[in-house]
């Protein structure tokens, strides 16, 4: 559980959060279980899966590299973002290491009483996690070239 202190209004906000940076395959079912409660009416889940193409080029294989601080930073980002929404619980997992095409690299799962906050929080978490987590993506293309995504 990650406890988020909202610095703006000195109000303590604590949304139960499961956060994982892992080389293991991500189980969406497990993450959903982490956020399930009998009084949460809505669960919204995002799964960011590895594609077989990027900008029209066929991707043969890819690998994510994580900085040693990735888990700590992910916990901080998740608790800060979750605290802004009326949600019951959140679960976020980011995978690193080699990943097979079609496997999930990032999964975000949010439960809430109502679906509006569940959708909003899930979408905001995906945006902020992707922007802030120190993880890099290395793609090898079918034509033999390779690239670190976002690095010219």
């Amino acid at each position: 559980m990650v406890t988020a202190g909202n610095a703006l209004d000195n109000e303590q906000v604590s949304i139960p959060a499961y956060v994982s940076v892992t080389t293991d395959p991500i189980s969406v079912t497990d993450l959903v279980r982490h956020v399930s409660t009998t009084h949460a009416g809505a669960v919204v889940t995002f799964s960011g899966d590895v594609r077989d193409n990027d900008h029209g080029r066929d991707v043969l294989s890819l690998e994510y590299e994580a900085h040693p601080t990735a888990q700590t930073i992910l916990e901080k980002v998740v608790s800060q973002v979750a605290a802004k929404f009326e949600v019951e619980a959140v679960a976020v997992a980011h995978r690193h290491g080699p990943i097979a095409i079609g496997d999930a690299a990032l999964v975000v799962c949010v439960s809430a009483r109502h679906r509006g906050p569940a959708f909003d929080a899930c979408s905001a978490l995906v945006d902020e996690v992707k922007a802030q987590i120190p993880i890099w993506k290395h793609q090898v293309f079918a034509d033999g070239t390779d690239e670190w995504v976002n690095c010219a």
Partner: protein
Amino acid sequence: MAVTVRLFAAARSAAGMREVQLEGATVRDVLDALQVTSPAVARVLPQCSYLLNEVACRDHSASVADGDVLDVLPPFAGGAH
């Protein structure tokens, strides 16, 4: 001051090394020394951010101490999406 520089992702690929010990009194000194040691990394550095002992470091005039660790971080995978 002897500083350990750790290179990640595209910075590591460009430099062809994962870690190097360099001398300097400030972050800027160490980065200048890095570009002398590995001219290939110079192309990547303008996009990079830095951590000094795993804390974000934006002020390149900051002093470094013996045993400090300076991490070179290229743009993250999800940063531009």
